[in-house]
Every structure is written in C-alpha cells, then in structure tokens.
C-alpha cells in the first residue's frame, strides 16, 4: 500500500491573500471495518486510514480523525484561507502506522 498516489485537486493554483481555496482529495484504500467476516467466519481485521491532516507551508489548516464508517477509497473535500505561498501537503495515516502523502502548490499573491 506504500505506493498509493492520492488524487488531489485545488480549485485554484493562485489565490489572493484571504481568499478561500477548496481542496478535493481521493485516495485508494480498502478501509476494512473490522466488522466483516470472511468465508470461514473469521473476522477480517480492521485496516483503515484513521487520520488525515493538511498543512499549507508547514502550518496545519485542517485535520480529521476517521472511523470505520468512512467509505472505502475515502474522499475528502475541505477549504482553507490563503495566507502564504507554499506546498499544500496532505497526509493520511494508516492503522499500521504507514503514511500516504500527496502534495500540491499554492501561490498567494
């Protein structure tokens, strides 16, 4: 699962200071709930992305804690206020501690 490439889209690449930027992101992940059973009746262990965070130029603008009730291939859409130019880094953390990271850029004029 280490090579998953998240799909990230900003509604604008350039923004005026104070403008609201919308971020949409989709990442491939099974989001196994830990509630399902396999054909032998054994519980399939839980494996989900339990944390999400977005930083812009190193400062956190939004984060989330996910439960198994989040659908497979989780989609997230949120907004942030353009303050300074820099990388927009999105990080998802798996139950096993591995991380999926995606990056975009924003230019603030």
């Amino acid at each position, binding site marked *: 699962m280490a090579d998953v490439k998240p799909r990230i889209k900003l509604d604008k690449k350039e923004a005026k200071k104070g403008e609201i930027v919308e971020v949409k992101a989709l990442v491939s992940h099974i989001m196994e709930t830990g509630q399902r059973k396999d054909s032998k009746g054994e519980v399939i262990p839980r494996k989900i992305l339990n944390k999400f965070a977005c930083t812009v130029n190193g400062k956190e603008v939004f984060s*989330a804690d996910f439960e198994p009730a989040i659908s497979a291939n989780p989609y997230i859409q949120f907004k942030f206020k353009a303050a300074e130019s820099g990388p927009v880094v999105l990080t998802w953390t798996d139950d096993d501690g591995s991380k999926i990271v995606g990056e975009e850029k924003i230019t603030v004029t």
Partner: protein
Amino acid sequence: MNYDTTLRPNRRQALSLGAAGIGAMVLGTSIVPAYAKNDAEELIKKFTGGKPATEGKVNLDLPEIAENGNTVPIGISVESPMTEQSHVTDLLVVADGNPRGGVAKFHFSPASGVADVSTRIRLAATQNVTAVAKMNDGTFYTTSKQVKVTIGGCGG
C-alpha cells in the same frame, strides 16, 4: 472465485427468507428509532463534556434516501466567521444505527477560513446522522438528519 456454497440458500430457505424480508420491510418503516442503539449518544456526551448543544448553525447535507449505504455523500458546514475571536474548533459526526456510532471528527482553526467539509460515509441501515460543532468559546451546536438506506453498507 472462492464463493462459499454454504451461503447459497436452498429453495425452502430462500422462500422463508423472502417472507422474513417482507416482514422486516413492513416493520422497518415503523420501528426505525427503536433499534437506534449504539455508542453514538455516549460519544456526543464525551465530546460535549455533558454540556447541552443548541440546535442550529450546523448544516447537514445528506440525501433523504441513500440507495447504497456503502458510500453516502455527506456535507457539513457550520455558520461561523472563523476569526481568532469566534471559530469552530471541532466537529463530531455520529450515526446511531451503525455497529459503532463514530463516523469522523474534523478539526478546524481560523486558518481553515470556513468550516465546510464533505466526505462519503457508510450507513448500515436507515438511521439518524448527527453533527455536533464545538466553538472556541466552549458552546456547542448540533443538527440531526435521518437517512433512509435501501442497501446497508457494512458488508457480510
């Protein structure tokens, strides 16, 4: 295909299942709140620390009828200026008819600009989804909405 043959019902089982299914459907419409029992309420209590949450300010965008409970689009926004003086800090989403009540928790700051988030969630059955917003001044606002689910979203 490792399809488990023991899961295939024979004709008699199929017939009785069908009858039970119809019965459940008829009952289902009338006793929706009755089986709403999981840890959703406790989660809200823990989130608010027992404080009352005022109705309003939170907008829940959910379909009235979800054909596929595996992926139900949800949008939540909270009315707030999102300034240093007044902003939303946390937003809790729970569903009272899933095996477990928790859905997600979102964290905002003035850098978020607006408290507006969308995602897709699993709903096992027809149930109420509740969002509770925590403001920086320690007050809470809440909104609930019922979603009718035709196919449950928790598999097996």
